[in-house]
């Protein structure tokens, strides 16, 4: 019975089918809004779905120099990781997450699976452009994981210290605390950490100011260069899912409060919150910024988001009083 519930959670709701549809919707809104910001008409909102169907109908080419097994399995790895990651995130009023403790760290590991899949696929393809892309991807991972980890730690300690423990790293623990004591976003001490998380989202996704690994104009799509057909579709889908997972994570960590107790209202409210995060941290940034160089991006992550979260962490430790 537990296994059955787990499978439903990962393959139907909230991971799997629901996550894929929602991710496609977010991607479509993102593309449409991006075009509107440039005063273009833009593609229809269901364009990402059309692209996926088109890609599955195309021929799949595998380069002669590629390592067949790794090249074919890499897209699946990232995709599966993201489906499992979305199943770990609670949605207020509808779904309470998979496990009771320690899942924020599991999430951090799962969040790096798409980057890992990209690196494996790129190295297996045997193309020089792909290997340059893979090494850049690796550098980016090293840069953005530092602030991301400190944000998680900050949120965990904020919730933990308030409850008399050192840190609470379970998703459901963090969400339940906020449902009882109000969102962490309303706490001014947490504002820098929230901003730092928003900075990390485009870097983790590899969209425009930080699309250094995939740089179309210099590396010809980098790690994705040799992928065509269904493999490419899988990678595109993984990118969309990652966008959804990160925005859902921002919602769960900083403002998970729901409206009323009716599930449909809560679901729509959750989607609206995800959309707000996507628009502000991805679309607006993507439409107004140009690509950074690798060293600039590396410095950016190690200076701005990291110091922002550290400010939050220090403020929390300074204002901490032992519960009497």
């Amino acid at each position: 019975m537990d296994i059955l519930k787990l499978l439903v959670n990962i393959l139907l709701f909230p991971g799997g089918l629901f996550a894929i549809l929602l991710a496609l919707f977010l991607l479509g809104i993102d593309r449409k809004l991006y075009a509107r910001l440039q005063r273009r008409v833009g593609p229809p909102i269901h364009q990402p779905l059309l692209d996926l169907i088109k890609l599955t109908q195309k021929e799949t080419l595998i380069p002669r120099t590629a390592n067949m097994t790794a090249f074919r399995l890499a897209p699946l790895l990232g995709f599966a990781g993201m489906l499992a990651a979305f199943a770990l995130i609670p949605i207020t009023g509808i779904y309470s997450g998979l496990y009771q403790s320690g899942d924020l760290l599991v999430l951090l590991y799962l969040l790096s699976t798409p980057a890992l899949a990209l690196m494996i696929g790129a190295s297996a393809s045997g193309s020089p452009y792909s290997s340059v892309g893979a090494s850049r991807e690796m550098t980016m991972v090293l840069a953005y994981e530092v602030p991301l980890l400190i944000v998680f730690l900050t949120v965990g300690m904020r919730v933990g210290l308030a409850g008399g423990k050192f840190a609470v790293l379970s998703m459901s623990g963090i969400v339940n605390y906020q449902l009882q004591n109000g969102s962490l976003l309303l706490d001014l001490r947490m504002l820098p950490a929230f901003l730092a998380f928003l900075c990390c989202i485009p870097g983790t996704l590899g969209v425009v100011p930080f699309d250094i690994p995939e740089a179309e104009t210099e590396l010809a799509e980098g790690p994705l260069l040799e992928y065509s057909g269904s493999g490419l579709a899988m990678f595109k889908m993984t990118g969309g899912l990652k966008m959804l997972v990160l925005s859902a994570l921002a919602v769960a960590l900083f403002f998970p409060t729901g409206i009323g107790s009716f599930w449909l209202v809560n679901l729509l409210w959750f989607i609206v919150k995800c959309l707000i995060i996507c628009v502000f941290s991805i679309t607006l940034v993507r439409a107004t910024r140009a690509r950074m160089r690798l060293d600039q991006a590396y410095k950016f992550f190690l200076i701005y988001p990291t110091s922002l979260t550290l400010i939050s962490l220090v403020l929390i430790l300074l204002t901490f009083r032992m519960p009497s």
Partner: protein
Amino acid sequence: MSEFIQNIVKKSPWIYRINAGSCNGCDVEMATTALIPRYDVERLGCKYCGSPKHADIVLISGPITAVVKDKMLRVYNEIPNPKVVVAVGICPISGGVFRESYSIDNQLDAYIPVDVNVPGCPPRPQAIIDGIAKAIEIWKSKF
């Protein structure tokens, strides 16, 4: 079923550019068709892609000089089927101002099948968009 797929597929053609010795005039016009707000091909679902392996419609400009011919054919062969070729500008069609030059062996359709010709030196963005729209119709029927 196949008609259903065709109707979905025709809304998502991805474009790739090959410069086969062009003077860059046609390339500027091609960039213009997609990259500036005035002529938006993304409303047709088009997207410029950086890798030939992601492409559906390939726009070739330039008179196919002897040096670039083999490289052009190699890139062309990397594009997964079904694919459609659009010759942009007068150069790939007949050689244009470079006709009978020592560095040009033959025109584009002597090497690969060309589906749409967009003549001009350079062609107007509207003509390129029209060529892409015609190419989409041909491409769709190949599924």
